[in-house]
């Protein structure tokens, strides 16, 4: 088989019959697949909390900026939420190196299909492809390198925002309204349970996402809170019928400042009615 390093257009590329980029890489250059890579066991940093929540016409996904290695902070400004294509977002928790590599593969997978076929995959199709990529990582997951992504996107056929979560074996579960993954997820999900309203605007949803990440950072050592001194804020993306966009740091900063100043008087965040 050829390798991509040989000059010229390989004949192998003419003889393949697949529209899947991941399958193509597996056949032509299997050593490039993230699942095939070996890694030094204890030295891989871990990425933590991702939240996603829907509004009537968009879905917002946000992630904190911390990566940890044991009890050390490996990176304080890592980015864990990405635009996967024009209409979908993917966020990653778990082993950082493998996860980011998997996102890279997933993005080419979607674009490759779209270019070959002339149409993009349905959102369910994208969700299923991501399942297959995670299942390919099962061997490493059993050794502790778990990749747990969260997929969210705008479904153009049904004109709704949807969220999908995954387990380490590639199991795919559609979530309604909101979801969180990663070590701080229980706290973030608890916060969203009290804060979420189905009629949120995008600005409301960004504020709720920041609230839930602050709550996660409050109780989970591996989740980083907003870094006010360095102005490092959560990465926030929005997917809607207009496509995906990253919310600029200035807007996220405004939401963070509002949340932090409100917590000066009530450090645990806004109170919810008892009944």
């Amino acid at each position, binding site marked *: 088989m050829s390798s991509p390093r040989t*000059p010229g*257009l390989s004949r192998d590329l003419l003889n393949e019959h697949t529209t899947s980029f991941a399958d193509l890489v597996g056949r032509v250059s299997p050593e490039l697949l993230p699942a095939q890579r070996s890694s030094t066991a204890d030295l891989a940093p871990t990425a933590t909390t991702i939240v996603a929540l829907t509004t009537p016409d968009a879905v917002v996904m946000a992630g904190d900026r911390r990566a940890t290695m044991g009890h050390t902070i490996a990176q304080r400004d890592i980015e864990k939420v990405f635009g996967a294509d024009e*209409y979908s977002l993917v966020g990653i928790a778990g082993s950082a190196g493998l996860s980011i590599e998997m996102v*890279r593969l997933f993005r080419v997978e979607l674009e490759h299909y779209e270019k070959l076929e002339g149409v993009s995959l349905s959102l369910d199709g994208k969700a299923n492809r991501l399942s297959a990529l995670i299942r390919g990582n099962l061997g490493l997951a059993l050794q502790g390198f778990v990749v747990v992504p969260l997929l969210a996107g705008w479904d153009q056929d049904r004109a709704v925002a949807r969220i999908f979560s995954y387990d380490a074996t590639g199991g795919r579960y559609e979530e309604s309204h909101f979801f969180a993954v990663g070590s701080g997820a229980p706290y973030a999900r608890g916060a969203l349970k009290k804060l979420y309203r189905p009629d949120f605007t995008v600005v409301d949803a960004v504020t709720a996402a920041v609230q839930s990440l602050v709550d996660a950072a409050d109780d989970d050592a591996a989740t980083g809170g907003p870094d006010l001194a360095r102005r490092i804020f959560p990465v926030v993306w929005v997917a809607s019928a207009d496509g995906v966009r990253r919310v600029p740091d200035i807007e996220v900063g405004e939401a963070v400042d509002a949340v932090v100043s409100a917590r000066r008087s009530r450090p645990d965040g806004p109170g919810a009615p008892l009944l």
Partner: protein
Amino acid sequence: MTVPFYVAPEQLMKDRADFARSGIARGRSVVALRYVDGICLVAENRSAALHKVSEIYDRIGFAAVGRYNEFENLRIAGIRHADLRGYSYDRRDVTARGLANAYAQLLGTIFSSGGEKPYEVELVVAEVGETPGGDQLYRITYDGSITDESDVAVIGGSADRIATTVAAGMKPTQSLGDAVRGAVTALSGAAALGVDALEVAVLDRTRSQARKFRRLSGPELTDLMAGPASPTKRKRSKAPELGSDATGSAVRAES
């Protein structure tokens, strides 16, 4: 005992070239030309589903004439080549020069090998640069020879005549409208070509997304062909252009 029939190599190559050339000459032409914000690809194509012009990578477009199954195979192989290279190195490491060389090697090998018939195709590989100085246009013929064109590349049946017409009326600083109108005028025979007979795409360096390729069709193309006299509102210029079937209402433009 039979004596093997001797054919001189010159004659053999000439026959193969004639065969490929006559196949290509039957097809309608495609024009690739520069405009101020990038490169514009214009084809006469009455099918909305079978493309002659398509996207290969972030900054790279592809145009072809000749036998559809052959250039479609080459298009797919090119996308695979580019995606593999970009995935194993970096997206910036995928270049039109590399891709054009790969196509040239493949076509050249097929042309000179006795076993297969030569491909009846001509290709254009175009890359839009960050600045106009970075724009590249390569024309690749059935025998694997590459020409590095400066402003205009034309492939297909009456390529020479069309190239002369387009080159006479253009400058690289022209607007997109002027580029499209110039190309369409040159492609049109006795009757002017309408919007539904055209396939137009641009590699637009001003596009904010990493993928600079965008198809122009329907009302947007009608506006462009109508010229600056009519108020051109460039709606949907930010909307993502996925796939192809955005043809919408096929309005015939009288220009």
